[in-house]
């Protein structure tokens, strides 16, 4: 009976924590939140164990089977995202607890944070298109609240812009839901994937949903709301937004793409997404090079990295199972490593701003001499974003490159290389500023050790992901979300063996496709 517990816990805990936090005094909010973070970590780990034992799990809420009721579903993809959320949000919570000064502001942070977490878990586990809409709205409103949090003029402008984009995106998504329901009479994703027939209504519905989700994920040219919101929010909030919140709409897009077989039915749309991604890589990288504020650099880097994630869509090919699998694995690994690296980078950037007391890049002069730890955290995350070995970012790009070669779409390769160069340029530009001689180095503040460790832990995790990359990817092949992706045995290991890292051998022969 308790076998089913992790899924409900993943939803109940954050919602209950939000309510309890609203009712309690400030000090107790902190304690409740730590307890809840622990429960979340344990629940996601036990969900992982359960998945390894039983395979994909369906949890019919209210004991009503879909399509009448709503089902929650935990397959490999969902569990990976749940784990990613628990790690990143857990560390960000720790950071926030140290970063926020006691007072009403800190008190209001926790309930919003918990609602955001609940919405994220809800989205990862959802298998119902309308439920995804409610989850998206909960997520957007909580995220907007977190952006507007400080109440300053800049924060408000960013929040309003973000809110308008998010609302328009949700409505476009809901419009798609309306058309899909009108055409197919069901809201359950698995029903839809069985009944889906190509048709005008379905195509327009999916186009509307995709537009809405892309707007929410800030894919170029719909990205204009992102840099002020992510760059202007408080540091822990920036980390959460860039690492997790935008991934929610990307995740839904990916789900729709593979479960409703859009990659088969509309390969042109996939190519379009890929080209938008390519433009995003170029534009995001270029703009990141031209920013004068440190956190804006990091925010524009997110715009570019979203582009990388989009490159997986044109590589999901119906006619080439190997390329598809590699693309899916590369794309998901990209999401995971970006989540860790970007959260780490934002936290490190926040620490640097705490050191210098000013948000400008030029204020960084002397930091690498006096605050090497902060700049080191920033650099580690940068290594993963640039895609240098042996980071998670490198493995992800490697898989995507392999996939591009396998499906003979060579034109994505220069895009990836150019993007890597641009990332290197903007990361080194930050270093360049930090290595300058400082005139008044004695004015540096010392951020708490805890803050430094949080940033470093996330950045290090993004590097570490490169060493254990086969493990999450193996998890990804567990469920049959991509039925066509039957890889020849051991081919994943083969493709990754080229990287020559010893860890991969230990997992040899474990990636048999399961039904």
């Amino acid at each position: 009976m308790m076998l089913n517990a992790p899924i409900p816990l993943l939803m109940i805990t954050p919602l209950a924590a939000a309510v309890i936090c609203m009712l309690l005094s400030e000090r107790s909010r902190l304690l409740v939140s730590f307890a809840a973070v622990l429960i979340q970590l344990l629940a996601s780990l036990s969900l992982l164990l359960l998945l390894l034992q039983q395979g994909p799990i369906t949890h019919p809420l209210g004991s009503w089977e879909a399509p009448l009721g709503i089902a929650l579903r935990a397959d490999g993809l969902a569990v990976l995202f749940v784990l990613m959320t628990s790690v990143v949000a857990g560390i960000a919570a720790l950071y926030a607890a140290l970063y926020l000064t006691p007072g009403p502001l800190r008190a209001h942070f926790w309930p919003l944070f918990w609602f955001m977490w609940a919405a994220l878990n809800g989205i990862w586990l959802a298998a119902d298109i309308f439920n995804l809409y409610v989850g998206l709205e909960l997520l957007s409103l909580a995220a907007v609240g977190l952006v507007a949090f400080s109440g300053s003029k800049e924060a408000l402008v960013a929040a309003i812009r973000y809110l308008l984009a998010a609302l328009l995106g949700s409505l476009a998504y809901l419009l798609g839901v309306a058309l899909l329901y009108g055409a197919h009479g069901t809201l359950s994703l698995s029903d839809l994937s069985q009944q889906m027939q190509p048709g005008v209504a379905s195509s327009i519905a999916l186009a509307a949903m995709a537009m809405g989700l892309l707007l929410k994920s800030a894919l170029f040219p719909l990205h204009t709301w992102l840099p002020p919101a992510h760059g202007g929010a408080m540091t822990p909030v920036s980390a959460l937004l860039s690492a997790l919140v935008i991934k929610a709409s990307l995740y839904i897009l990916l789900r729709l793409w593979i479960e409703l077989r859009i990659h088969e039915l509309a390969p042109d749309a996939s190519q379009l997404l890929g080209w938008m991604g390519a433009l995003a890589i170029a534009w995001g990288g270029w703009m990141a090079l031209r920013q004068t504020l440190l956190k804006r650099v990091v925010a524009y880097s997110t715009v570019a990295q979203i582009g990388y994630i989009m490159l997986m869509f044109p590589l999901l090919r119906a006619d080439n199972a190997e390329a598809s699998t590699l693309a899916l694995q590369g794309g998901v690994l990209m999401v995971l490593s970006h989540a860790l690296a970007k959260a780490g980078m934002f936290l490190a950037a926040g620490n640097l701003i705490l050191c210098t007391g000013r948000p400008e890049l030029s204020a960084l002069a002397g930091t690498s001499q006096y605050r090497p730890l902060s700049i080191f955290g920033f650099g580690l995350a940068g290594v993963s974003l640039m895609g240098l070995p042996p980071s998670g970012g490198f493995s992800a790009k490697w898989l995507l490159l392999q996939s591009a070669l396998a499906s003979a779409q060579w034109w994505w390769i220069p895009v990836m290389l150019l993007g890597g160069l641009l990332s290197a340029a903007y990361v080194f530009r930050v270093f360049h500023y930090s290595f300058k001689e400082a005139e008044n180095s004695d004015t540096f503040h010392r951020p708490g050790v805890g803050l430094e460790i949080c940033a470093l832990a996330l950045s290090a995790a993004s590097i570490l992901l490169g060493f254990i990359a086969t493990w999450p990817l193996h998890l990804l092949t567990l469920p049959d979300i991509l039925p066509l992706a039957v890889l020849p045995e051991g081919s994943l290991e083969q493709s990754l063996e080229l990287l020559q890292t010893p860890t991969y051998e230990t997992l040899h022969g474990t990636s048999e496709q399961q039904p």
Partner: protein
Amino acid sequence: MSVLLDLLLLSSLWVFALLTLTALPLFRGVVFFILLGLMLALVWIRLDAPDIALAEAAIGAGITGVLLLDTLGHLHHRADQESSPIRLKSSRFWVALISSLSLAGLLLWALLDTPATPTMLAEQVARALPNSGVDHPITAVLLNFRSYDTLLEIGVLVVAILVGLTLADKDSAQLSLPKLPNPLLQACLALLVPLMLMVSSYLLWAGSKQPGGAFQAGAVLAATGILLHLSGFRLTLRTSERLMRAGLLLGFSVFLLVAASALIDGQPLLTYPDHLAGILILIIELALTLSIGLILLSLFTLPHFALPEQERPK
């Protein structure tokens, strides 16, 4: 005949929508927006959806309208004149026009291309209704079959309140909305308030068998609160913070507790035991009505505490 009526309603919807967006000054636009909401309520009746009609009139037109008008009250103190938005020379106008026309075209295409088939979900609802604990299919969907959506939706409402709380400053409890010291109003309140409370409880009670339910009842409750607020009886988050907070969260907490209680039994989340389904739904609805009433009221009253002009520290 009824087609004519429908077409009349359709054209009035479109006209009011256009007027909402183009009428000057903004106040007029908001009034047209409220009219649009009332027209929509009629449309929902025509679509055999009295539940939505009630909610649209009470929440869509009522509460949203009050919130908008209240914001306008803040606005016109700061001379904020806008010129006519339709400027044929601006590229913005043409981009907007072309995108909206293409949206209409695409949707029309989708609509015409899709055959009208009865949905199988409606049948399933009808079949499962006897086991749901209520007799009204919409209440059954909202609080039993798809209760998870409703749970998250209450979360969305609470988030809106939370953001309001974050932005409102605690210290300067200064009312910006004067009360109306009108003797006739006060006299009428004695008549209206009990009546509204009665309507609210009727809607709640009716919800298990016929149109009505927690949301509509809560909206009427909130309207009562807003009326009282305007006449000077102020029940706000500031008066008794703890009590009010508990009230706001009561519905959500009760819902969450009931949802989680299924786990003790080893059942999936939100499962009601068969014989208890009716009573549990009633308990949830009672708590939700109170909370929704308080939340919608607070959405209105929260910003009436002037914020300090200077920026708050980061």
